[in-house]
């Protein structure tokens, strides 16, 4: 029993010992090339632990395995690894220290042919992480990519695909780079990636027929942004706290055939942004089952946007639930499907027959919002009583009331169950409870301390008091 337990520990110890000795030994990447030369094409080559200095260029189909202990160090110049042939696998390496001048776009791994596989690697201190150029049918998975500690504008992309169709990008963790960007690459599967502290979580240009599933994008400028990309399905992504100057949770520009389903969009500047999507006359968009909560604007759409079906979503406490970009109406879209609309936390209607559908349509119309559309500078008065006064005026004088921006004819009165990636989070309660207690005790004890003692000379305090009380009201 004891012996079987100690075996893993022994292995870990050995691994650490190897790791330490690996750090100490500095080798050249030429040693790896010699191993590859000696091997058959497509053979598995295990690279012994060590730090390999230099820029590794591979042009032979091979499966390289660093087993987590081999470190490839680019020495701060150019690409750390460059793949010129197809059918190469890079697995289990630490890949670090690429060049840092943006002109040559130095990468951790750059591939010029496909298919290739890049998996289980750890990228550190690289300007660009992984760059696939015309490398179709490739797989990028289980990599951890950390960028150089530079300001956002000077960083490179975490993962970039260029003319690389049919790729799978999954379970990668990208922190502190610029974008995850996919250009002219079709039929991709992007799933379960974590992107944080970057600019664009996932960015698509002219990349059609793609599935984005269960990715977690937080604290970036923008979560997912699609441009000119058609037939994209976004399912169960969690997109939180993306608040750049044009920070969108999900942004769609001129995209046809989009499905946005069961995503979590929390505390972004804008939850979902529809910019002329769908753009073709006969195309449609579907936004359904999403949790859109605590964003500055829940759903922002240009008035030209049409033929989207927006139903079964939950809109909770967004500063502005829905907004038309630049003013106008969104009446060319459908805010319900088959008699079911959306849940709006600010819905003020009722449900007499208790069937879960409100009996009065949800029609947002706000005089202040329409003033804002005319004069954006007025936004400074948000959250002030004057704003409420204006809304009250509009209610009292219907002539002043603007037309509704859109109509949800069947608003939900109960929270629907959504199939979200992140179901619930527990937050520590004690500090806030302590603050509550402190405030109450402070007020109570302070008040008692002050009021208790009658240190005032009787001649000043009490008679005046008594006299004051005798005066009839």
């Amino acid at each position, binding site marked *: 029993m004891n012996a079987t337990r100690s075996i893993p520990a022994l292995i870990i110890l050995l691994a650490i010992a190897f790791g330490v000795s690996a750090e100490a030994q500095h080798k050249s990447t030429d040693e790896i090339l010699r191993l590859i030369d000696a091997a058959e094409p497509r053979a598995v080559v295990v690279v012994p632990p060590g730090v390999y200095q230099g820029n590794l260029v591979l042009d032979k189909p091979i499966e390289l395995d660093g087993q987590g202990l081999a470190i490839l160090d680019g020495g701060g110049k150019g690409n750390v690894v460059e793949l010129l042939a197809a059918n190469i696998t890079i697995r289990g390496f630490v890949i670090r220290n690429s060049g840092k001048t943006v002109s040559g776009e130095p990468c951790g791994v750059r591939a010029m042919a496909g298919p290739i596989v890049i998996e289980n690697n750890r990228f550190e201190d690289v300007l660009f992480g992984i760059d696939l150029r015309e490398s179709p049918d490739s797989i990028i998975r289980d990599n951890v990519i950390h960028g150089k500690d530079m300001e956002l504008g000077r960083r490179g992309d975490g993962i970039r695909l260029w003319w690389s169709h049919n790729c799978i990008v999954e379970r990668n963790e990208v922190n502190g780079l610029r974008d995850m960007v996919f250009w002219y690459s079709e039929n991709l599967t992007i799933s379960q990636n974590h992107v944080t502290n970057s600019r664009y979580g996932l960015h698509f240009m002219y990349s059609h027929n793609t599935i984005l599933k269960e990715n977690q994008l937080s604290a970036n400028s923008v979560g997912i942004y699609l441009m000119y990309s058609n037939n994209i399905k976004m399912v169960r992504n969690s997109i939180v706290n993306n608040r750049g100057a044009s920070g969108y949770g999900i942004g769609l520009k001129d995209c046809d055939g989009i499905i946005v389903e069961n995503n979590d969009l929390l505390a972004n500047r804008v939850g979902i942004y529809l910019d002329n999507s769908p753009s073709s006359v006969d195309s449609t968009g579907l936004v359904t089952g999403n949790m859109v909560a605590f964003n500055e604007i829940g759903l922002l759409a240009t008035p030209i946007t049409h033929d989207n079906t927006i139903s079964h979503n939950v809109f909770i406490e967004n500063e502005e639930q829905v907004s038309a970009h630049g003013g106008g109406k969104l009446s060319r879209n459908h805010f319900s499907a088959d008699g079911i609309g959306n849940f709006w936390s600010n819905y003020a209607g009722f449900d007499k027959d208790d069937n879960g559908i409100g009996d009065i349509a949800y029609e947002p119309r706000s005089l202040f919002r329409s003033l804002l559309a005319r004069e954006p500078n007025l936004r400074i008065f948000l959250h002030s009583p004057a704003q409420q006064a204006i809304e009250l005026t509009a209610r009292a004088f219907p002539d002043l009331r603007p037309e509704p921006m859109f109509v949800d004819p069947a608003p939900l009165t109960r929270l629907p169950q959504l199939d979200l990636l992140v179901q619930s989070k527990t937050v520590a309660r004690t500090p*806030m409870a302590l603050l509550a207690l402190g405030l109450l005790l402070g007020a109570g004890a302070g008040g008692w301390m002050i009021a208790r003692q009658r*240190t005032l000379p009787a001649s000043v305090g009490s008679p005046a008091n008594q006299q004051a009380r005798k005066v009839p009201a």
Partner: protein
Amino acid sequence: MTTLAGKPHLTRAGSHLSRTGSIISFARREFRDAISSRWFLLYTVAFTVLAVAVSFMSLAGSGSQGFAGFGRTTAGLLNLIMLVVPLMALIAGAGSLAGERERGTLLYLLAQPVSRIEVLLGKYFGLALALCGSMCIGFGLSAGVLAWRAGSVGLSAFAMLVVFTCGLALAMLSVGMLLSVVSRRTGVATGLSLFAWLVFVFLSDLGLMAGTLLFKLRVQEVFAIGIINPLQAFKMAVIVNMNASLDVLGPVGMYASQTLGNSLPWLLALVLAIWTIIPLLIAVILFSKRASV
């Protein structure tokens, strides 16, 4: 009668110790009077009930997510604070001296061997403590609701909300005291303070809104005029603390964040400080110069 009120502190060549001592005594007396008065209890209960209700309602529906809606709660609380706190503080300040004057007790107070400054500052500090304590009760219960329903997200921002609300109360109390000094009767003082409340809460903002629309004011002009209003300064200070930026407030807010950066919260706190010190100073000067009671 009026000569009774002379200037005793001149003859006393008052030491600092006794002067602070009597300010503290007056503050204690004012505090006791305030917390035992009906209006004060009414406001405290109203503020507390509303604050708790707002916290509850802002968090309704967020339970399924477990994602704290502190921002929404604050937005709700902001509206409430900006309506109730200035009203409370202005009326408390307005009633303080004018009330004593009307009842005739002011004469009695000034007959004591204390200076008018001591009376005024004592009253100010007593009321300030009572107001802040009353708000701490409301915020304390509201924080309890947050802890129960949403957890501790936004703890420091909530604490800063309490601090800035106390700052707003001090500024408004200061204005109220000034109105109290210049009015002869409680009715006049209360009327003036209600008018001041209307101006601070509604008229100045609505006027600036109209001005922005009519004259197409530029961002820097809107910002400069806007922050003169202590309520706007308070609101911006709370939002800056919450979001580290004012971009929520559109182009004007972005301009403020961009040009002032880290000094923005200090500027806003300074506005509140000025609104506290200047009216109180004027009140002190007027009160000690007025010959009659």
